[in-house]
């Protein structure tokens, strides 16, 4: 006899829709499906961080994949697991993504052992982005501490590639010691762009360091800010937000013109696993980019 309660094949529903496209959020998608991607280049940045160039193998998927500065991807290393990584490359680079990854856990250690040609999976892009469109015609402060330069690099590319859209541009970066400076081979190219002020500071200099010494907030003292026409993007460890955003508040920049990127544990990237949940807020879908007002309203955020 025929079954009274009929089988409902959920796959039929997804087959009617477009192939995987995380940019299109409507409809039922195979949420666990990854884009297969190849590591095409590995660049050593410091002892702890490497920059990976990854290229989505399927031509149509690669063509369709797009992201905004500040968004992240879930990087799958089959057999090891999946980690959220912010995208460090330019949004105009269609060929491959750049992912700056610190060696810190099971998955990232496996990635650091991976050779050129290894195949990983990507899901995403996920999360909110830095609203650079809104910042057009204004001055912009790009401030990073430590590994915070990784998520800041996408907006830096955007601003330097579209220099004419902004008034004053300041890039301020600080780390503990000179050997922790990321992307040090790029500072000169940013500095040479007409009218980009880039300042690097370290807390504990070594013998060869001849730049400024101290905390990142000290760089802010020398920056002239037109508080009514300036936006700030701040990336770094949570403790830095308080000091940097506090200093910027003193200079008169409204809290909703300062943007930060938060870090949380994430297992899905889609607002389901709750690991990044703080009350009503999911760092993966409502963030990782928040304005400072939202952050101070978010209990336990920093």
């Amino acid at each position, binding site marked *: 006899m025929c079954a009274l*309660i009929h089988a409902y094949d959920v796959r039929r529903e997804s087959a009617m829709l477009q192939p995987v496209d995380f940019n299109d959020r409507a409809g039922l998608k195979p949420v666990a499906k990854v884009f297969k991607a190849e590591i095409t280049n590995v660049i050593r940045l410091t002892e702890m961080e490497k920059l990976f160039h990854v290229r989505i193998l399927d031509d149509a998927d690669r063509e369709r994949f797009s992201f905004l500065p500040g968004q992240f991807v879930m990087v799958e290393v089959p057999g090891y697991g999946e980690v959220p990584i912010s995208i460090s490359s330019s949004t105009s680079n269609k060929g491959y993504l750049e992912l700056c990854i610190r060696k810190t856990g099971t998955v990232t250690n496996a990635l650091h052992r991976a050779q050129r040609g290894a195949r990983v999976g990507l899901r995403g892009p996920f999360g909110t982005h830095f609203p650079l469109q809104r910042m057009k015609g204004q001055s912009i402060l790009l401030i990073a501490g430590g590994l915070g330069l990784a998520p800041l690099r996408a907006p830096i590319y955007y601003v330097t590639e579209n220099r004419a859209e902004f008034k004053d541009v300041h890039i301020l970066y600080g780390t503990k010691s000179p050997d922790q400076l990321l992307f040090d081979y790029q500072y000169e190219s940013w500095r040479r762009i007409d009218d980009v002020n880039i300042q690097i500071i370290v807390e504990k200099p070594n013998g060869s360091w001849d730049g400024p010494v101290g905390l990142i907030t000290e760089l802010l003292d020398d920056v002239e800010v037109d508080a009514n026409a300036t936006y700030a993007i701040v990336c770094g460890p949570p403790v830095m937000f308080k000091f940097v955003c506090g200093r910027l508040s003193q200079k008169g920049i409204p809290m909703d013109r300062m943007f930060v990127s938060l870090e949380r544990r994430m297992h899905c990237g889609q607002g389901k696993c709750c690991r990044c949940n703080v009350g009503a807020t999911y760092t993966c879908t409502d963030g990782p980019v928040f304005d400072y007002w939202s952050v101070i309203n978010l209990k336990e955020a920093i």
Partner: protein
Amino acid sequence: MLFKILGKQNFRSLVEIILQSNEIIAPKKIATNASGEPIHQFLPIGSFEEMDLDYRTTEFSAKTYFLPYRETLCTFQFADADWEQEISYRIQPRAIIGLRAHDINALVKLDMVFTRSRFPSPYYISRRKNTFVVGLDHTPLPDEFSQSMGTDIVTHGFDLFLTDLGDRYFVAIASDRGFNLLNRVEVREVEDEDTNAYKEVRRRILEGFKTRIDVHNLPNLLDLEFTSQVWSKWGEKCLSCGSCAMVCPTCYCYGVSEEVSMDFRTSTKIKQLYSCNLLDFAAVAGGHNFRPDKETRLKYRYYHQHRGFVENYDEPKCVGCNRCGRVCLAGINPAAVIKDLYEEDL
């Protein structure tokens, strides 16, 4: 909503008709506790007799049939230096019989999270759409507070919902497939006498709620009492075991891990339900833990239930079944914690 009257003998025939072609999950007596009371659990049944619809409660909710404690998200097959990902969903249909109103409302809340949010879950939707839900009214247990949470009445999220009128059931029909199934046996139209009997049962159920908790302005109160001593008082007792989340019909948070087969040919990506009370819930790479203290983790559990979920979905996540209160080894129960929050002097 359509209503019909179903004789108890015909209900039995109905269950037997379903059993001929589908699996049925129902409350089943599995043991007796120290005080001689039966312990029930939602399990597959082989015959009508195995089902015990007079059950008081189940220690575990039925959520495992929608959100399994362990579920395979995908597998990776390794070959040479490459891999292929394979994804499958559970599509075998089955029926669940005997869910209480608050347990069905728990499914309705899970529906909001997994079917009506930004990234609908095909894993959940497949299980949900393939499950035929038959609900059943009950006299509340003394510690249940579903009436305070507004989950004692159910209007959707099921196929059939039964109210026991002694020798017959008053049946609410909420789906086309429920209507069709009911027509396989003899049913009759509702008469005034039935409606009156139904109203009488509903009145008795309402009177049965002995625990009522004040939830007026609770979301704002939680913000105000963020640093309250109430959290250290209850947090001190908490064993961070996560039992509350395991038995909760709406707790859905999870962790994902991968298991490689012994021959290194496949890796399975497994989603396992988690608990926000477990120590490493919010620990991130590099060793920082956003919630190192058990009282903070306990607080965030209440925060999500009664504050965050309300902001996202306009209603609390808690359905008031008090399974968490009963299972807690440290004697923490939501009615007492929330009462303390109201009594805390500002």
